């Protein structure tokens, strides 16, 4: 794990100390960070989900998509935006991608002086709890 990945993992563990935080290093140097059992409120077909992000070896160069547990859909039947997908990203775990870059916007490098990966987790959780 690189120093930057380690700092990000530490920030997630410190912020979500009441949750289990799983960390899995892959052969290519990327790291899956998963916060287990996140309460996402009544708007979904599940009340809790596992929230994951993959920190590439180039982290913090560029932000990365967040993923939830497989099969996550809105309880009101509306299509979600972005559309969740159930994908196996090579580690045998099926996940739904819930945030991603938008092609009409420039992709910015993750700025570690003003934000943390833990902060991004919080932002994604807030979005999940009040989906539009």
């Amino acid at each position: 794990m690189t120093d930057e990945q380690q700092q990000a993992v530490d920030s997630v563990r410190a912020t979500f100390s009441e949750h289990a935080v799983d960390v899995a290093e892959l052969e290519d140097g990327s790291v899956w960070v998963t916060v287990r059992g996140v309460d996402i409120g009544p708007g979904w077909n599940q009340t809790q989900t596992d929230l994951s992000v993959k920190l590439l070896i180039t982290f913090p160069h560029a932000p990365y998509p967040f993923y939830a547990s497989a099969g996550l859909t809105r309880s009101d039947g509306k299509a979600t935006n972005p559309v969740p997908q159930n994908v196996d990203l090579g580690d045998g775990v099926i996940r739904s991608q819930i945030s991603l870059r938008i092609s009409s916007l420039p992709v910015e490098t993750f700025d570690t002086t003003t934000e943390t990966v833990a902060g991004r987790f919080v932002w994604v959780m807030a979005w999940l709890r009040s989906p539009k």
Partner: protein
Amino acid sequence: MSWTATILERDYDALQAQLFRDDEDEHAAFLYAGLHETTRGRRLLVRHVVPVADADFGPSDRGAYRQVAARAVARAALDCDEAGLCLLWAHSHPLSNRCVDFSSDDLRAHAYAHPALIDMTHGRPVAGLVFGKASVAGEIWTPGAAPERLTSLRIVGHHTRDLFPEPPMSVIADERFARQVMMFGDVGQEILRGLTVAVVGAGGGGSLLVQMLAHLGVGKLIIVDFDVISKSNLSRVVGATPADVGRLKVDVMRELVARIDPAIEVETLRDIAYAADALRVTEADFAFLATDSILSRYAYNLLCHQYLVPGIQVGAKVTADSAGRALVHVMERPLTLGGPCLDCLGVIPPDVLIAEQQSDAERRAQRYVDDGQAGDDDPLDDPSVITLNSIATALAATDFLFMFTGLLDSAPLISRVYYPQTHVLRERAGAAKPGCRFCDPAAASVLARGDLKRLSLRPGERTPLARERAPETSAARPQSWWQRLRAWLGLVRRRGVGDGASGR
């Protein structure tokens, strides 16, 4: 184990301004440095120059002419330790020019202070340096070892050069270099012979660079490419023939260099995005980048700044305007490490960087919001033409040559773009971004940290391509038509014997 130090030209200029003033008196500065262990020796990589205030460099109470106040040294040691760097303290001998050495008082001060400073910086090396106007001497202390002397100081920048305790002996260059020696002298040729140069990418651009560097007479080449020669490479990869299709490009380059100058040492590697190969590249004095991969560009930018290896990125691009007309430009982007890095110049697009690291499944998952580039599973090759590669690489190789032989004039060495259709050459000045994680010494950047920071690259080495052809020995792969004929005759004879035997 030899010791050298490396400093950026802008920092050396600041150091000179601090150490050599009109008062012709001695002055001092602290240098905070990273550390790099190589097979050639240990390098101290200067990251910060911190002037010592005159009030903290007064007459000594132990009889020496001047000494740095203990409180100033302690403060510097604590700063260094907090930053995870090594402490070097430097002072000037203003009457020394091309030769310099420590006084006995200087050496006594080292013996007195260095053991405590090593403790304060958690066992990292501590060094004393003394500068003449065009020379430097150094003494490096490490835990439990006798002090060692600094061999040289490399100044990296517009004129990349070495300082020594005294001028080294010069040798007469080989006759093969007679015409170029007329331009930069035997000393220049000796400088080239002492250099290790990395060429990352052995395709159309990289092969031209390898060829030019071999003719120039550099001492060692590190050539990096994981790919094999394809048929479409034959139009532009120098040294490749139809018989080389399927062979590793780096093996073809090794043979090219051997034909030009067998005395040049060649090391071949696969991929600088992997830490094992990247660390080998950090041993180079200079590194060219000639690949299309953004991940390679990221890795190159990272290791050049973390290990203070200057270099130049080259490229040629053919795009199309709205009417479908070809738009051609070639570019060189020097990394003299005192200016903006490739990320500050905006040439490491994050979306492509992500896409290059993703699995097919990940790219497919994101495709529905993609712009059709980053998520493509089978991106089309870009156009590539040898004449365009030749322009970019000639500009870059000439800048490299002039940087090391001192032939560049005072114009800044910045990115250049040439438009062959209009014969226009434009300079592209850029600015370093405050807070840049690669090049800003004021930020928590990788600059000059060397081994004191883990390299943020893929662990280990790249695995070979499935389509890679097994290396052939020179005996099995004859070079001349006569050798080919003899081999063919030998093959016929062996077959004849074999056929006869099997016919029994």
